[in-house]
């Protein structure tokens, strides 16, 4: 049995947790304050008034709806393309594969501002007007990477012999994909998809370059900060977003709680 951690270690742990979560608690607290301009502490009073007012803000709803649409679309594209490229990288050996791997990972390592400028320039060249779809394409560039990373790791763990066994037992490529590959990838797709969704949902920099006058939710937030009236409304929306993003994560953890890994008995080759 491991011993009890020392007092100092536990103290450090709680301080770290406090540092991580205190700002979030502040947001929740100031979503309920009766005072609407400054972060006065303690809040002079608590109220649920701002929740009602936030619901009335059509611009917020429009931004939220746009963000959800963009994130869903970018995630859908990433799931298809990311899985396909992962399958190809897993299945085939070819010249320049390592180089291609680096190219694949690059969009997520590249500063958003570079991706943004590059995309803007390209869209201008192609005479594409900034629109909903340019935002989606911009987000998809880095969403693909997260899906690819998750799926390719799962492919490597899965072992090619399962697919061979399926075909050996009479399943063609499509049936093998449906009955063996997809179920094995399911949790990886879920994880990659959720991460993609979250990345897209709070993306600011690439969006500012690829959007026309559309406001995704993060951009709406930024604009609100410059207009400090009704500040608690921003906090209310933040709390709301927190709840909405928290639920899928809990759900995903619950869904993947007993994914058992199975490897063969011994050596392969």
């Amino acid at each position: 049995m491991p011993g009890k951690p020392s007092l100092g270690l536990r103290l450090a742990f709680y301080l770290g947790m406090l540092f991580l979560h205190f700002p979030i608690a502040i947001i929740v607290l100031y979503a309920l304050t009766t005072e609407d301009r400054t972060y006065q502490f303690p809040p002079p009073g608590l109220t649920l008034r701002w929740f009602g007012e936030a619901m009335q803000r059509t611009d917020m709803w429009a931004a939220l709806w746009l963000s959800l649409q963009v994130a869903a679309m970018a995630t859908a594209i990433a799931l298809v393309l990311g899985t396909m490229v992962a399958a190809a990288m897993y299945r085939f050996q070819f010249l320049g594969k390592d180089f291609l791997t680096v190219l694949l990972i690059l969009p997520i390592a590249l500063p958003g501002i570079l991706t943004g400028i590059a995309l803007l320039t390209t869209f201008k060249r192609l005479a594409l007007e900034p629109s909903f779809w340019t935002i989606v394409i911009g987000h998809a560039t880095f969403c693909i990477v997260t899906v690819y990373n998750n799926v390719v790791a799962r492919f490597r763990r899965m072992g090619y012999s399962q697919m061979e066994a399926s075909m050996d037992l009479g399943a063609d490529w499509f049936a093998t994909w449906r009955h063996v590959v997809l179920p094995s990838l399911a949790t990886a797709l879920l994880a990659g998809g959720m991460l993609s969704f979250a990345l897209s949902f709070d993306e600011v920099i690439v969006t500012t370059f690829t959007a026309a006058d559309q406001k995704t939710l993060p951009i709406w937030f930024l604009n609100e900060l410059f207009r400090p009236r009704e500040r608690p409304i921003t906090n209310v929306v933040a709390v709301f977003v927190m709840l909405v993003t928290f639920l899928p994560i809990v759900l995903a953890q619950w869904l993947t709680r007993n994914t058992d890994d199975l490897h063969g008995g011994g050596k392969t080759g």
Partner: protein
Amino acid sequence: MVQMLQEPQNQSTQAAVVLRGVSCYFGAVKAVDGVDLEIFPGEFFSMLGPSGSGKTTCLRLIGGFEQPTSGQIVLFGQDASRLPPYARDVNTVFQDYALFPHMNVRDNVAYALMVRGVPRSERHRRAEEMLELVKLAGLGDRRPGQLSGGQRQRVALARALINRPKLLLLDEPLGALDLKLREEMQIELKALQRQLGITFIYVTHDQGEALSMSDRVAVFNHGKIEQLDTPKALYEYPKTEFVARFVGSANVLEGRLLGLREGKYALRPERISIVVGSHSGANCLCGTLLDIHYLGAQTRYEVQVGSERLTVLTSSEEQGLQIGSPVTLRWESGSLRALQEAP
């Protein structure tokens, strides 16, 4: 009517598997290099060789997992060289079992039936039958991850047999099991093969396994078959130095040393007797005793003869032998086997 008349005739004349000049190259590597062989229906056929000898690639060619670079693969009279695995009446037990981790044991076993659209109730009934056959009755609801290595091996076997294939390929199926379990499974596999009458092609690097189970064995080396024979013929009449050394152990001697014509000769360690002192005569060599290993049922001696080191195996321990002292090795003249160059 016509079929009924024709079938028995076909069965007796038609080979289960024919490979004609089959090669399979991976880039510059000649994994399989011009293999010809014929496997008969109902035969327990083993492919024996060290790793990298081409035996597994040969099996994968028959299963359809690799495409031959050249040559022809005929399965039950039908050219299958370019058929995908799912179009061949052949099933495989994989070395790593390749069970589907997201399905329970019953669904794993019934997979081939599910793919063919057999109704669920019949699927379950037949899966249960197969599980009984491999002595896993009642474990259908388990996940593969909850089974032991030996049990997984049986599931893989049941899954491959549920379609009643005419040909079963086994790729080192016992490689991951411990010695005791491996011996048990060897006996069971052999019994199962007799019971079902299915042709088995069994890949192994374990010569003991190949000898004890097979009707015939093909010994692979460098992508080629060095010798294809019954286990007894392989052991008694090895054709090449590689086969002599790989199947059992052998002393390989130069003809010059024995006073015979040029070439190499194999002499099994148990065909030699050992006595104290230096004696001369036909069919004997003098040397120095290097070491004695007591093995229980047998005793092994290492003897230095000129520049060669010979191994002798006797069933009873000779008295009066001392390490470092001169000894004489004798054998019957019929015990020497002249070896050919590798093909």
